């Protein structure tokens, strides 16, 4: 039986639909990721699954408990790591853990054993008596992970778990998480807009404007993009585009230049260089990049936009504003 079952889940804020009839299932021990840009509905979905937000339609269950009618049982069986740290900075790491144990009614003996084991795992045994105020961002996240696992949850929800952390710390945190997953058959459900983080997942749902546009393993998703990705910059992208059109090659204009998905990219490069050279007047290429497709490419292919496009469209901005004013879940 799946650990998380979601069917036609929906959430509206006024007349804005944040999550549109989303359905998916997550198996026990799976690392399942929601990948999408800010405001796509990731946090809203996670908040509904964690019983922080009401649903507007459809159904969802976690560990067999309905998120609408069995909230207490859902809460007891999940751990949650939020985007923003929720530690009490004025208290010590240990006091933060103690409060968690009190809130989840963890027996004293279990608390002692479990906290010792988890603190060792996240390498905070020596630091835990200090005030959280003195902790680095990475240490805070590690402490939150230890705290989130204290009551033996079946599912750990992570909302942008490594946002704002440096890549080394991020990688380190994933080491811990995969370790627990393997040891305790823990299910991980995360949202992210980092591509490399999404690669850790067993399966990924790509979400955009409140809808799942694709759901599969990272490798299968990447195979949606044909062959290789070649990115060209030229001194005149408009003319370069017409040269590509003359070669019968489709392209997309991105912030990095002209992006082409093509089989045998290595053979395409000399061809395109020759064509640009022979064009009248000549188009000079300033850089060429050839790579295997990434999840970012998958996202571009499916939505026509880059996930990290700095310039949000006007509608996106409206959405974000409404989102900011509409509920307490997201980051401003």
């Amino acid at each position, binding site marked *: 039986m799946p650990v998380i079952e979601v069917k036609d889940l929906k959430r509206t804020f006024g007349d804005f639909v944040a999550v549109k009839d989303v359905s998916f299932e997550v198996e026990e021990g799976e690392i399942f990721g929601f990948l999408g840009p800010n405001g796509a509905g990731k946090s809203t979905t996670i908040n509904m699954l964690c019983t922080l937000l009401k649903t507007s339609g459809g159904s969802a269950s976690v560990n067999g408990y309905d998120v609408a009618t069995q909230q207490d049982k859902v809460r007891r069986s999940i751990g949650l790591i939020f985007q923003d740290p929720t530690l009490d900075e004025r208290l010590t790491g240990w006091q933060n853990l103690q409060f968690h144990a009190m*809130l989840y009614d963890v027996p004293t003996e279990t608390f002692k054993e479990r906290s010792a084991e988890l603190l060792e795992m996240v390498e905070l045994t020596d630091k835990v008596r200090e005030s959280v105020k003195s902790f680095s961002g990475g240490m805070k996240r590690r402490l939150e992970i230890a705290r989130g696992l204290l009551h033996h949850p079946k599912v750990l929800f992570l909302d942008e778990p490594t946002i704002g952390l440096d890549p080394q710390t991020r990688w380190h945190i994933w080491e811990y998480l995969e370790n627990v997953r393997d040891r305790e058959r823990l299910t991980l459900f995360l949202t992210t807009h980092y591509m490399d983080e999404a690669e850790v997942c067993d399966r990924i749902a790509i979400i955009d404007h409140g809808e799942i546009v694709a759901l599969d393993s990272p490798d299968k998703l990447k195979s949606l993009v044909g062959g290789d990705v070649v990115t060209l910059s030229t001194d005149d992208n408009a003319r370069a585009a017409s040269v590509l059109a003359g070669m019968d090659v489709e392209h997309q204009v991105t912030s990095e230049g002209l992006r082409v998905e093509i089989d045998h990219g290595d053979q395409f490069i000399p061809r395109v260089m020759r064509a640009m050279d022979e064009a009248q007047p000549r188009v000079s290429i300033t850089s060429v990049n050839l790579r295997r497709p990434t999840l970012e490419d998958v996202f571009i292919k499916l939505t026509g936009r880059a996930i990290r496009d700095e310039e949000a469209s006007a509608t996106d901005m409206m959405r974000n504003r409404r989102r900011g004013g509409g509920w307490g879940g997201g980051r401003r």
Partner: protein
Amino acid sequence: MEMQLRHDVKGAYTIWYRDVLRFVRDRSRIFGSLAQPLLFLFALGFGLGSMLSRVGAGQPGGIVGVAYIEFLFPGILCMTVLFTALFSAISIVWDREFGFLREVLVAPVSRTAVGLGKVAGGSTVAMIQGAIIMLIGPLLGVHYDALKIIEMLLVLLLLAAVITSLGILIAARQKTMEGFQVIMQFLLLPMLFLSGAFFPLVSGTTAGDVLRIIAQFNPVSYGVDALRQIALEGKLPATYALHPPGVDVLFLIGFFILFLVPGVALFSKQD
């Protein structure tokens, strides 16, 4: 059912314990929060007090009245409680958005328990603040016996509970701190200045009677009235009192229920 109750009691206790622990650990906050009442006591009590004759003196019945600092002291105790309790309750807005409260809200503890824990925590901390000011009293020439101290602490605790509940009622659905200035301007300061904390609300004069009518709607007035009557037992004329202390306490209990029930209900509502 019994399990749930156990969790809720423990949860409420946790919230209360956290507030108290934070307060005790944070010495700078304790000293910082003493600065304002002490300033008022010195500037008003001694500065303004030096040009005032004894408050209430020469009234019918041969009452000798009290020094202004003695008159002012219960008012400053209420002020301390008012500020501490309201700020502590309003901090839940910030706390919910970015802090520890989010961790609490996903825990298997009912929100009613969380709200009640918060009321208990805010009240306790505010009462402790008031008690610390009372400790300083003898240095300023204000002395109370043990029985008065106990009675006054109980009134302070009740006032703190009223104000914390009011704060939670205000903060329950608020998502941003933007409304904060407005609350300061239109609630906190009028509640303080119109409560009779700094001057007597004397019946029989036009201004006094108007102030007394306004004071009936202000929970702080009842706290000040009760506290001052307990502190200055019989030293002030009867025209200075709003109600007998027992009636003040009943009104405070009424305000407490009036604020607490909708406050916790709003706070418990799921988005």
